[in-house]
């Protein structure tokens, strides 16, 4: 296995510090247990190698152009140091200063967190992916170049463009799932430090993966959605979805738009509208049938609940959160309800909690609790036998470990899935594993990054899914359902199931929670879940 031997190497040489080969990894469960039958990791193209920094691990997430001169390298290094200084100022980083200092000062470097990290584990325990490595490099930089501290106390690191560019790239080899923080005996948070490195890159240097910045938060602020949909297009698409849902269920469905004074402003991840239209369709059907007073908003960004800033940029985060709140204020709704999107949940309820004040501080609630209310109300009748197939549940990190929404989704599943058909993954709940697409990975597929994502970051989730269904016949004739109530997680699970051809080989498909509910609705025509479509 090619891996980094010591921290010093991080600043040295031009060659990649690590390389992942399937033979270094633990085989997956049956029927995917033949390492030699796994899809090959695609190498970087010569063009990518020539144009972008790629000396970390033979893949690229960020696409940092290679500097053209030593002077440019020096300028970029100085920018990074300038950003590092700002990171420790109250003015520029009040948002995370205390958690940052806590993790910088109190990590005991005991490596306890390594075993909790699915990326480190599934890489074949490659030292480059230890949660502590990027943190330790940042820590040594800070104490040496900002605090001018002693090498005896804080260790040493050489500062050059290789160190900086590799560190930025390495910050995008972490899903920010915070499993490492959960296991830290002291409470140090290496995932947070990965995010802080991303912030220096974005907020000071203007460096971020284009999928989450230029085509993500910037596009959302400019057009209204990272999907590129403006308000006219999204209304058109929803109208089409309403018609389709009406056809499929036999129940007329109409989504209300911009209804002033409604109780609920429902905000979906707009990716659902584009990629999984059955999800917003199911929401509309359930909310209407339950008699809820709700609306969607065609205001800028208010029809797209994503907030990619939560992964890399506090300012972009604040801008999007404000747009969401402003739309709710304009409509005068009683609360904002967030659809099946984990990071949108955490962004608008937990993180924006310390951003929104006064009349913008409108209560925010998870759709999961609203859906459970619908189940409990008895206004909609469910026939569990319509979901007579094995179901497992993926816990989105943002919704579960980082928000504590654990029980309601399980209660809903028990109400719509026959007893004995639901099985938990191991581990689950707040100890779950990330889908592998967290922190933006699910939408990042440039160069050969998707191969790394499938082989490394998503491998633990795929292993969990396979293990959950090991007592079932693994073939297409016995369909199995992975319920993933999060748009980004669904995207990652879709990609990894396709990568391993899991539908054809093992009959494993996926979808959201509301799809399972509508599939069991007595008043709806059977067969809402379309197994082959994905």
């Amino acid at each position, binding site marked *: 296995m090619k891996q980094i031997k010591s921290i010093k190497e991080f600043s040295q040489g031009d060659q990649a510090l690590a390389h992942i080969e399937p033979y270094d990894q633990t085989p997956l469960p049956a029927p995917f247990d033949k390492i030699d039958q796994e899809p090959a990791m695609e190498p970087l193209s010569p063009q990518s190698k020539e144009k972008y920094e790629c000396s970390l691990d033979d893949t690229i997430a960020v696409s940092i152009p290679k500097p053209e001169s030593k002077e440019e390298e020096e300028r970029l290094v100085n920018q990074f140091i300038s950003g590092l200084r700002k990171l420790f100022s109250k003015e520029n980083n009040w948002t995370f200063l205390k958690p940052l200092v806590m993790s910088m000062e109190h990590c*005991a470097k005991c490596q306890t967190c390594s075993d909790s990290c699915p990326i480190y584990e599934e890489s074949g325990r490659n030292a480059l992916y230890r949660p502590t490595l990027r943190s330790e490099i940042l820590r040594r930089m800070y104490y040496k170049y900002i605090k001018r501290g002693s090498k005896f106390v804080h260790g040493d690191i050489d500062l050059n463009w290789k160190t900086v560019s590799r560190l930025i790239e390495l910050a995008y080899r972490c899903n920010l799932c915070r499993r490492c923080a959960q296991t830290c005996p002291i409470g140090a948070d290496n995932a947070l430090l990965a995010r802080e490195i991303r912030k220096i890159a974005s907020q000071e240097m203007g460096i971020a993966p284009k999928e989450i910045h230029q085509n993500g938060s910037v596009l959302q602020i400019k057009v209204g959605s990272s999907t590129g949909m403006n308000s006219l297009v999204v209304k058109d698409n929803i109208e089409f979805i309403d018609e389709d849902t009406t056809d499929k269920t036999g129940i007329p469905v109409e989504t209300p738009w911009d209804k002033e004074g409604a109780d609920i402003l429902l905000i979906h991840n707009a990716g659902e509208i584009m990629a999984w239209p059955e999800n917003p369709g199911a929401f509309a059907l359930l909310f209407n049938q339950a008699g809820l007073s709700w609306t969607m908003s065609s205001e800028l960004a208010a029809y797209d609940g994503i907030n990619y800033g939560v992964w890399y940029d506090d*300012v972009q985060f604040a801008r999007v959160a404000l747009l969401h709140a402003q739309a709710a204020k304009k409509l005068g709704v009683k609360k904002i309800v967030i659809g099946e999107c984990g990071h949108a949940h955490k962004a608008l309820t937990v993180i924006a909690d310390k951003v929104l004040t006064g009349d913008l501080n409108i209560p925010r609630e998870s759709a999961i609790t609203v859906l459970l209310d619908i189940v409990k109300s008895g206004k909609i009748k469910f026939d569990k036998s319509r979901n007579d197939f094995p179901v497992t549940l993926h816990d989105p990190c943002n919704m579960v470990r980082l928000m504590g929404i654990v029980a309601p989704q399980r209660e809903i599943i028990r109400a719509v899935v026959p007893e004995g058909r639901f099985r938990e993954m191991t581990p689950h709940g707040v100890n779950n594993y990330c889908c592998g697409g967290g922190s933006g990975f699910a939408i990042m597929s440039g160069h050969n990054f998707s191969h790394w994502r499938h082989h490394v970051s998503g491998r633990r989730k795929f292993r969990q899914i396979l293990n959950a269904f090991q007592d079932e016949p693994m073939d297409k004739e016995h369909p199995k359902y992975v319920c993933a109530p999060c748009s980004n997680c669904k995207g990652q699970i879709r990609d990894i199931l396709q990568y391993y051809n899991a539908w054809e080989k093992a009959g494993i498909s996926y979808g959201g929670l509301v799809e399972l509910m509508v599939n069991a609705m007595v008043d709806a025509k059977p067969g809402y879940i379309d197994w082959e479509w994905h």
Partner: protein
Amino acid sequence: MSAILYMVAYLALGVFFVAVVARIIMWIKMPMHVRWELYPVAHEAGKAHYGGSYYEESEWWNQPRQVSLLGELKVMLPEILFLVALKEHNFKLWLRSFPFHFGLYLVVASTALMFATGLINAISLDILHGALGNLIHNVILVSAAAGLVISWLGALGLLQRRLSLHELKDFASPADIFNLVFFVIAFGVALVTFVLVDNDFSIVSGFIANLLTFKPAALPGTGLASILPSISVVLMSLLVAYIPLTHMSHFIGKYFSYHSIRWNDEPNLQGGPQEETIGKMLQLPITWAAPHIKADGIKTWAEVATDITVKENKK
């Protein structure tokens, strides 16, 4: 000579208390940060056992907050005493770290008892004779001896692990190694002193009583019987002063790490007390230099977030 010993001890205690208080003030004075909790949150009544939160409740902002201090204690006490998280996630390290820390607790407890008895004697309370006095003496004897032994073994084990595992050694600074060596030497000398010279801890108890009464009397005995306790006092004093100046001050940081970050799920409700502080934070000037931030060092967070939104809208 004896005066120097007492001066070192007073100085060490002074440094310790000043450093600890300074650390606590530093953490308290840190600005408000955005919420970054991690579940399970121990005080979530009825939900902490599976990691649930108030977000599981419909219209949670209209529900009464159920905060359980008992829930926090149920997690904190086993964590402080037995390092439960480490045991669960890194058992091999726990086998070394637990005796090290628990030994420290015993040494601290026995020292505190020595201070207490010294104080009681100093104010001439006649309550430490007979059975109670014997009991306290035996408790001090057992806890101090056991604490020194297991803590020394733990420190030795931690040092062995730090030096023998590449992934620990590579990440360690020279100071990390020094810290453990310091413990091994200081506790080792204290142990030797106990075994050879002060096997009922009467010398150290007497020294502590003198500290309390400001009577810098010479330590009893001559030769090794005097030198060993003196070295032990100096080393222990230096250790006491040194700990809060290093990352070993995590005994303070851990409290804030849990209560202020990991378990801090206090919501900011409309019109609630947090809004004023948030408003102040949003008025701080921002100087991030990336073009999309559009900061100029004068604009505040609130202005940068809202101004750009308006400009972007017009495009």
